[in-house]
């Protein structure tokens, strides 16, 4: 047993179920995410990946099932409270604040989610240093609507990082990007991980998942069909069936 295994999990999801009317999107999902882990979440379209993220970030209410973050049961908490506790996310389809500049988008996060009370000047410094780290320094005063796809993805990650998260959930941040852009975003995620931020990455691009993840979980039709190291999961019979059909 390694040391990481004996530490208490950062996020503990216990028997989570989510129904939409008669449709069960998630069925009895239980998983522990360890502090500092790089966790890959895969599965075919419609398997419940984004639903799971929505449950963790609080966009959806879950009836049966609990979510522990650290030692706290966050199941009854609203999304903005969860963000302040340290859960940040990006969206599958980018959702920037369209009437704002890139800098203002980040300032929303710093105004509302920053943990310590800091002056406006300090917040501006933090904002600029995050943008520089993202390679968006020159875009600070550009309206969010004028960004390219890759810049938009990076801005979403930057905004999430500005909330000062312990857990970052990246929902297909690389979808629709070119090969070199995928590497850029992947390097950014890896650099966050090296700063001790736990990351859950949903991705369809398998090379990215394999390179990034310490552990991978595969969902199919709302249930966990495999969880383990990337190579274990890829070799799993059921994962191959889920992706390729039987």
């Amino acid at each position: 047993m390694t040391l990481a295994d004996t530490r208490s999990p950062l996020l503990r999801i216990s028997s989570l179920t989510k129904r939409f009317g008669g449709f069960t999107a998630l069925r009895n999902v239980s998983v522990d995410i360890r502090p500092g882990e790089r966790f890959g979440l895969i599965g075919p379209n419609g398997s419940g990946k984004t639903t799971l993220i929505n449950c963790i970030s609080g966009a959806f209410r879950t009836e049966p099932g609990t979510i522990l973050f650290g030692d706290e049961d966050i199941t009854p908490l609203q999304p903005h409270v969860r963000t302040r506790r340290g859960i940040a996310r990006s969206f599958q389809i980018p959702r920037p604040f369209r009437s704002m500049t890139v800098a203002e988008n980040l300032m929303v996060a710093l105004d509302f989610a920053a943990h310590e009370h800091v002056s406006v000047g300090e917040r501006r410094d933090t904002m600029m240093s995050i943008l520089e780290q993202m390679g968006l320094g020159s875009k600070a005063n550009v309206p969010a609507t004028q960004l390219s796809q890759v810049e938009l993805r990076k801005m979403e990650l930057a905004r999430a990082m500005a909330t000062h998260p312990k857990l970052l959930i990246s929902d297909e941040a690389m979808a629709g990007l070119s090969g070199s852009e995928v590497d850029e975003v992947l390097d950014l995620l890896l650099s966050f991980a090296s700063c001790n931020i736990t990351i859950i990455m949903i991705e369809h691009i398998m090379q990215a998942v394999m390179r990034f993840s310490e552990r991978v979980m595969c969902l199919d039709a709302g249930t966990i069909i495999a969880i383990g190291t990337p190579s274990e999961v890829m070799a799993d019979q059921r994962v191959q069936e889920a992706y390729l059909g039987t």
Partner: protein
Amino acid sequence: MTRNGIAFWTGAAVFLAAVFAMTQLVGNQYPFFAGYVILQFVALAVAWSILGGYAGYVNFGTSAFFGVGVYASVFLVNAFGAPLPVQILTGAAIGALMGFALGLLTLRMQGIFFSIATIALTIIIETTITNWRYVGGAAGIQIQRPAVTAPFDNYVQMLFFVQALLVVLAVAISRYIQNSWIGRGLQALRDDELAAECTGVPTLRLKLLACVISGALMCAVGAPSAMYLQYADPAGAFNLNYSVSTLAMSLIGGTAHWSGPIVGAILLGTTQQLLTVTISSEVNVLVLGVMLVLFVVGAPEGIIGLIRKLRGKGKEGEA
């Protein structure tokens, strides 16, 4: 204080001084009657824009808040002979409570559903007042103005000055909100409510706050109206025209900046007053409609948006 802040407060002081000078110098009563109505709409439009503009929640209930302000005064005068400042403060307090209740009940609804709920509010309150004998019921009620206090020698002149004070108060609050974290949060939730929540913005709480402030101001603006008309009836106090005009003024002026509703209200309010005198009071409803259509098609961001666009183009030309 920043340079902008100094400029703003200087402007506000000059405005109030000019209004006060006007009450002392101008003998003709008509400018005060007309000016009062224009100022009333400026204050209403600015107040409306706090929820309708910054947060993007279109409130059709302006007439409900306005009417409650009117009837708060009617009740206070009838029951206690309360003076004007008490009427306005009580109006504001009731408006705040009403905004809070309306917000709790309806702000979970988004878009058009919220707007429809606010129309329902107007109808419910108007029906209640219509059936409340003590404040006159459907027939309305006459109100006796008390003696005017110095330095004013006419009650309408005093009301004109009071309404100018309310305008300054509303604008100062609106400007503060826009420049503060509250404004940034409202703007974020207007753009995308889920993204705002996930960025740490307590959306429901901010919307409630906007609704409370907006409601308190609208009721406060309505309160002196009973004294202005010396009469109140439900059909007049809860006239849908207040909702439509306020909304049109804010949208035509532009809601992206605190000054937009002021520009819109002065433009439309003045036009309405001129048309009422020169042609008829029915025509001004038509003009309002036509202008709203023209702006929605031609300049959806309002006058402020149009100016910004032109300026932006000018800058590009220079470069």
